[in-house]
């Protein structure tokens, strides 16, 4: 097992965490932790670390980072576990800084005043996460531990966001101004992205089977789907508008089905077109790369081709197919945000609305959930693929 290796590496001083910790320290002291805006559009005044959270808060942040740096040099057996606990706790309690900042600086009497997150805070968050990833990597992959961290950090952030203290946070203000729209955008985004993934999965499965049966089709099919992938998303969305409008004009019956030149129809079509390449490629590779000796063994056991496919090839190919679904889903979530430009809705509509009004917190309200959704899909499908990996009965 790898225990002995990880134990020996545990006792060597780690250089990565100190490097990250020093960078984080420098940036959190140099950049503004937060800004106070008198209203939504007017740019606010920035506050550095000491001004934002006071000497006490600054000392706490500094000593936490310094402690983490020192811990990396210590010749201690369980130091990575302690490091993990320290970093996890800091990340879970990070919104407290914003809470303190808002309570210290927000003027009592102006209801439009809002606090915004500054670059220093983002940097602190980013580097703490990098240190956490590094620590997790040194500990070796432990699913249970990772899950616990996600639950603790995510849960703590959710509680903080719903609390009174962060109510003045501009991001929260933007959300509170339009909870119904946010929910609608969430479902539209999910429906478009997952709808495209589901449709393309079915299409790709069919195409992959066709390519397996008649190898002559391999080059044209792969060529076509990679051609589709090369065209930039904005161009595909744009190119679909004219033909779809013409189609609807020619057959008005389509319009009663909700099909139009802009909106969800071109978005879904384009998303499916984009999803085909990773899906077809992975499904085809997965199904063709089942070792021939296993297929022979199956035949020897008296399986016919149909049983061979469903009982042997498909289960063996499933992790690689899921990997294709993972890549496709992440890509579709990102492209759905672009589809807001042609009126398809989803989180992208907040992004582009915010850009149009120069309201940066509305941009964040669209961008952050999009990123969160992509990261979540990544985590879920990675775990699914790992759990489906067939384990040999005899090692």
């Amino acid at each position, binding site marked *: 097992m790898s225990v002995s290796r990880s134990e020996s590496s545990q006792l060597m001083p780690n250089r990565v965490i100190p490097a990250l910790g020093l960078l984080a320290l420098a940036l959190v002291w140099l950049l503004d932790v937060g800004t106070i805006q008198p209203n939504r559009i007017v740019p606010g005044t920035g506050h550095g670390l000491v001004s934002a959270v006071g000497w006490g808060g600054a000392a706490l942040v500094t000593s936490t980072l310094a402690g983490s740096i020192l811990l990396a040099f210590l010749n201690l057996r369980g130091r990575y576990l302690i490091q993990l606990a320290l970093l996890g706790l800091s990340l879970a309690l990070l919104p407290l800084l914003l809470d303190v900042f808002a309570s210290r600086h927000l003027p009592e009497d102006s209801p439009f005043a809002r606090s915004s997150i500054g670059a220093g805070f983002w940097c602190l968050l980013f580097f703490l996460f990098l240190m956490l990833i590094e620590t997790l990597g040194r500990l070796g992959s432990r699913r249970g531990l990772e899950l616990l961290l996600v639950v603790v950090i995510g849960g703590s952030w959710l509680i903080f966001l719903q609390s009174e203290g962060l109510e003045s946070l501009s991001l929260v203000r933007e959300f509170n101004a339009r909870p119904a729209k946010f929910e609608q955008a969430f479902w539209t985004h999910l429906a478009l992205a997952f709808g495209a993934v589901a449709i393309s999965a079915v299409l790709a499965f069919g195409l992959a089977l066709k390519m397996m049966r008649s190898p002559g089709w391999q080059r044209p099919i792969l060529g076509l789907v990679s051609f589709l992938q090369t065209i930039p998303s904005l161009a595909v969305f744009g190119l679909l*508008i004219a033909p779809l409008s013409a189609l609807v004009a020619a057959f008005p019956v389509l319009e009663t089905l909700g099909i139009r030149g802009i909106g969800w129809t071109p978005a879904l079509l384009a998303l499916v077109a984009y999803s085909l390449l990773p899906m077809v490629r992975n499904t085809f590779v997965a199904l063709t790369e089942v070792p021939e000796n296993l297929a022979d063994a199956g035949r020897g056991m008296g399986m016919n081709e149909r049983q061979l496919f469903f009982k042997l090839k498909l289960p063996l190919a499933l992790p690689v197919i899921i990997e294709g679904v993972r890549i496709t889903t992440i890509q579709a979530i990102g492209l759905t945000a672009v589809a807001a430009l042609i009126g398809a809705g989803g989180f992208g509509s907040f992004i582009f609305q915010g850009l149009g009004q120069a309201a940066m917190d509305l941009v964040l309200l669209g961008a952050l959930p999009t990123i969160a959704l992509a990261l979540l899909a990544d985590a879920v499908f990675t775990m699914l693929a790992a759990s489906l990996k067939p384990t040999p009965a005899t090692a």
Partner: protein
Amino acid sequence: MRLWLPPVLLAVLLCGLSAGMPALEPLFHWVQPDKQQVIYERESFLFLLQNHLLLVLISAAVGTLVAVAGGIFATRPSGRDFLPLVSQVASIGQTFPPVAVLALAVPVLGFGEAPILVALMLYGLLPILRNTLAGLEGISPAVKEAARGMGMSPLQVLVRAELPLAGRVILAGIRTSVTINIATAAIGSTIGARTLGDPVIAGLVNGNTAYVLQGAILIGLLALATDSLFEALERTWDRRFSPQVAV
């Protein structure tokens, strides 16, 4: 030389269309009969094309330099400690949707060309970094051992053995990066960069499908021309280096 024909033809078509779009006015009148003006005239298409290309070229050049340097650092004995983190960051970073990265650049850096350039560089270096790591890590230790045995210094091993062997994979990374960046730069016109995305956005705002078509066609052609250029480069690379590699 048949290899270089598609990129040259596509590039000629792209430049020709950018310069001669007004000549197609009757065609666009047919597409959009209810509008007086059917040719986008706020900027010349050639200027937009040049600006678009410049953004992608600068970000690809800087991204390649930084990513290859980072990849080399993380695979040397002195930087090996950083390898797990760097490769994790490269793969997690690619989970971030490019639009979201572009959108996040605005609150930090403001509107205009600068935030787009930074976003394109940062996002574009991830696939190059990942491929550089994969390429350098994929070289069999025996090859490096043999190079050292021939009396090469570490620098010579890197320049004369490792980089040529990893070059093909790094080139593929640059291709992925440039493809993504052409698409992202087009969306950049929503935050004030003047790229070929401009006519598309203007057309969507004004309900002028002719504008949308003009922008979309040029963006598509630009992507295809660039992709076929990389295709030709990769084939040429294979021809030049593969025989020696196979030994």
